[in-house]
């Protein structure tokens, strides 16, 4: 309530008594209030039409932790000074405050920079910007929308977890495959007819000799090294407050593992038990990476399906295609049994457990049976762990 109604009533009463008495001072009092009202209206209207705001905002795709800078310029194109001008920025980025209050002389310009960091994953809007200004008496505040908004997508933080991954068939228990898959020589799975596009190195000369025509090698697609990431997004398992919550850690780990797998040339798929039962089929390349990160940027732990069911449903179809990485902070044991059920000889799946007690959840720390420790690879992540180091915690350490 700006007080306009009582002010107008007061002016009317004063004007009435001034009119019937003809007293100069009574007129002056009525004039003061009337002129205040009129001046405030004209002032507010005039400055609202003459103010402009320009904004240089970041746009596109960013990753958690990246800094950014914005530049605002407010210009008063009129002659009247602007007593106050609130530049209200509706940016939804958490922890970022770019709204400012300022005062402008006639024809003046004010410029300022704001710096921030993308602290959380998600899709965020920069702006729109509204300017609230008015007269010095506060009678006619006005709000003007002066700059449209733009949007950015912030991907989860990706850490260097390259050596983390499920063991492929043929490996011995407890060993970890070292090195990048692209460095290993390809294995020939079969031969086929020669294609003119094939290089000379691809010709399988023994078969050519036997068949009497050019034959080319068919390399092993290494299906067994594909990766399925199962991310637990069941509601109620998360502990802590974002960004220091177990689900944020889990999502960041999922993004990191997917990213690492794709960098190794693996086909990576992602399955979650969120409300939409999201399942992204295995694939390779940059498009798959963006597809996965786009989903992970907005993923929420809103699911109602238990992790064990998700593992069973998607693990059966994945059997023999490669390893499975389950990322969860669940204390339950059903998902472990389900993961063991979908196991394949010679392939050790990886269980990444984000320890909920380290995020403030009540209860004892997670304990894993010895048998499970031997059957699966385990990585226990606690709050504050240096994920870039990619250290694995063995089940024995649990």
């Amino acid at each position: 309530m700006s007080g306009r109604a009582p002010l107008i009533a007061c002016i009317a009463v004063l004007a009435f008594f001034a009119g019937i008495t003809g007293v100069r001072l009574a007129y002056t009092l009525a004039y003061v209030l009337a002129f205040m009202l009129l001046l405030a209206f004209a002032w507010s209207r005039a400055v609202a039409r003459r103010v402009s705001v320009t904004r240089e905002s970041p746009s596109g795709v960013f990753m958690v932790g990246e800094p950014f800078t914005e530049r605002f310029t407010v210009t008063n194109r009129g002659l009247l000074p602007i007593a106050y001008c609130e530049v209200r920025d509706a940016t939804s980025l958490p922890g970022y405050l770019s709204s400012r209050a300022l005062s402008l002389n006639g024809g003046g310009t004010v410029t300022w920079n704001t710096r921030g960091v993308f602290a959380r994953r998600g899709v965020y809007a920069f702006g729109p910007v509204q300017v609230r200004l008015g007269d010095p008496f506060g009678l006619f505040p006005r709000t003007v929308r002066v700059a449209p908004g733009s949007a950015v997508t912030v991907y989860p933080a990706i850490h260097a977890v390259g050596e983390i991954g499920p063991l492929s068939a043929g490996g011995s228990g407890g060993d970890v495959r070292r090195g990048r898959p692209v460095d290993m020589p390809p294995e020939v799975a079969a031969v086929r007819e020669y294609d003119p596009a094939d290089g000379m190195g691809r010709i399988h000369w023994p078969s050519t000799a036997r068949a009497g025509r050019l034959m080319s090698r068919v390399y092993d697609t290494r299906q067994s090294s594909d990766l399925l990431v199962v991310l637990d997004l069941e509601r109620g398992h998360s502990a802590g407050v974002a960004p220091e919550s177990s689900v944020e850690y889990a999502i960041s780990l999922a993004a990191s593992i997917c990213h690492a797998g794709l960098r190794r040339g693996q086909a990576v798929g992602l399955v979650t038990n969120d409300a939409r039962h999201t399942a992204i089929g295995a694939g390779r390349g940059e498009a798959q990476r963006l597809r996965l990160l786009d989903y992970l940027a907005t993923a929420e732990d809103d699911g109602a399906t238990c992790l064990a069911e998700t593992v069973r449903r998607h693990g059966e179809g994945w059997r023999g295609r490669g390893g499975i990485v389950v990322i969860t902070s669940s204390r339950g044991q059903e998902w472990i049994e389900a993961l063991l059920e979908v196991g394949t000889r010679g392939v050790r799946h990886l269980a990444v457990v984000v320890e909920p007690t380290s995020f403030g959840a009540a209860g004892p720390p997670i304990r894993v049976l010895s048998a499970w420790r031997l059957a699966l690879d385990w990585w226990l992540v606690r709050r504050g762990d240096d994920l870039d180091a990619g250290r694995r915690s063995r089940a024995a350490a649990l």
Partner: protein
Amino acid sequence: MLAQGVAPRPLPATQRGRTAAAVLVIALVAATTWAVMVADWVDGTAVTLAAAVVAAAEAVLIARSLVGRMVAAIAAPLLGLIVIVLLTLGSMPADSGAGIEHAVLRYAGALAAGLFQSDDWTFLVGLCGAMWLVGFWTGWVAVREQRGVLAVLPVYAVLAVNALNAPSLEHVLIPEACAVGLSLLVVTRTHLAHLESGWRRRRIIALPGTGRSFGRTGAAASGLVLLLALAVPPLTSVDISGRIFDVGSGQGGRGGGQGGLRGGGTTEQQAPIQFSADAQPGGALVADPRPVLSYTSENSESVYLRVVNDTVFDRGNWYYCKPPLARQQLGAGGSVPLDAEPGAGAVGSRERRLRVRIVLDAAAAAVQADALFAGEPQSVLSAGRVPSGSAASCAHSTGSAAGGLLTVDRVPLRPGINNLDTVALQPTATEAELRSAGVDYPAWASQFAQLPTRDPADTTQRLAIQARAREWTRAERDPYDMATAIENHLRSPDFTYTLTPPRPPDGTWPITWFLLTSHQGYCQYFASSMATMLRAVGIPARVVGGYGGGTEDDSSSSTRTVIHRVNTTDAHNWVEAYFPHYGWIPFEPTPPSTVGGQFDTFPRGNPTAPAGGSGPLNAPSTPLPAPRLRLQADVPQGSTVTPAGGAPRGLVASVTAALTLAALALVGWRWLAGAHSGGALRQRMRLLGLAFGVRRRPSDTDAGFARRLASALPADTTTVLHRDGSAPPGPRPVRAAAADALALVAELSGKERYSVEGLLPAEEVRRRRAWQRVCRSSVLLFWRRLLAVTARA
């Protein structure tokens, strides 16, 4: 693991802003109370200043203690009551009651309805309560609720009531202008506080200098509004409140100010001398002359102009009867329906006709909606036509069979008529004839010989007056001599004419105090007293209200007809007594004086009757030239006339000059302190050096000149002794700060000029702030230098 957003710099606390708002609020309340005090429409208003200021301060403190509204609503009235009781307990008049319970009841009554009471103490307590309420409201709403407009509206109500009640605006104008200006500043300051609260709540960061810039803009807007309001003339200058509100009927009225809402005439307090429909002897008067009318009369003689007869006596005051007991429309030719039969007693047998042409001032015409006559009303025309009006009578009987009125006590006309041509009858009976008139009064005349009282106290006073009247008339045998004796006593040196008569004690009629004790008063005292004494000795009498003869217009002295000019200070009361066969005979009990004017007794007989001046009633007479009203510009210089519709030029000029000086100072300051480029800074620094007696040499570098300038600044240890040898408190250590800032400015200017990369943005900011520090310090340092130079001289 996950990065945090960059935390913004927290908002600075607004402690200074809240303090400024509190100071402004207290100053506003003090200015408002000051305006009430100087208005002087009630005694003892100084205590309201304490009540209001304490209330505002209390509200500010409670608001800043952040207690809840409920706590404030409970605590505030208790504290206010304590303050008011402490301020007014000493002046509480004694009465028949006793005990704390009785005192509590008196305070409760006074606080609840004191503003509507005429008793001084009760009114004062009520006023204290009202001012305390206004002060607390203003402080609380401005500081706590942060609603500036709502906070100051009660102040405007007080200022308006004060303006309407003030007898004169001469002393009220300045404090009210101050209060209005402060109120506008309070509104802007409160709005800024409200904005800052919102910014803190919504985590909006205010850029540096926002508050200062807002304050400057708000002050400029406030000054503009005030200047406009002072410059724009009022739409009207005519008081027509009497037509809307039935005030001014007399009894119990308090006030007497500019508007008719204040009681319609002179009452207990100071009031401008002007026509009053009722005669209420009261307090002091203030001369505020304004033109009312000009007139020409046959033979150019000066005449008293009758407007109204006050026939109703009540507690020493005389009132026009409301409503009139009889009323008749004007007749053909504008004839007043006054019974013309001498046998009926309405008119005398020895009369002369006197015609007067009157031109009313435009402003007065709207107020003076009555015809004016040089005697007993006979006829009235306006521009040759019968004006819309009627004749009103306070006599119970309608008179003769002809249907005429026995008395015509007022001839109200349609407002706005400013041109009157009136004919009246003046008695020409000689003293001998009046002495022989006898006491054979007609029956209707008895109503004009009554002195009704309401209670025993009134009766006591009436008897005291009656005793004094009998004492003065003991030696006389006939009514005329008795009336003359009373007139002579009142005109004797025992009685003094004054515009500032002493106030009578509570409960005592002013005329009783006047007749028996003070012997000081103005025309209302004399006329009311004589009329009362005449009735006390059985002679029918009435008080006549109107205007004295006015002054001759010098510019008309060379012409055949003299123009008389009448202003508000010519308002006058005189007395008429009824004599059988001769009608109403005027008497002038007011003595001549240098203050009031030359009041001569009425001549008897027909010494000034011009040839042909008296004749048959309604006979045609020689046309009179219409008088010409003097323009405002003709008002002599140095007179106290306040133009009714003009702006207060002195105040407008003062405010304009002050605002101009402030604007010039602001522009100069911004020019000096707003320099930010290297060249501009060098130029300003050179000027600063000249002010301190240091001239820049061509060989001076920026740093070298800054060092020389810093060494020339007055030392912080400079002490200027007063004439009595005492020393003021130690000076503020500003020299060192100014020297450091100068060195920084010079260093950065040198870097800007000679380095390849120039100045970084942060360095530019540092240099600008350092230069502003230099400018701020230089004001005080320059003042010290002036003092030192003066002391040496």
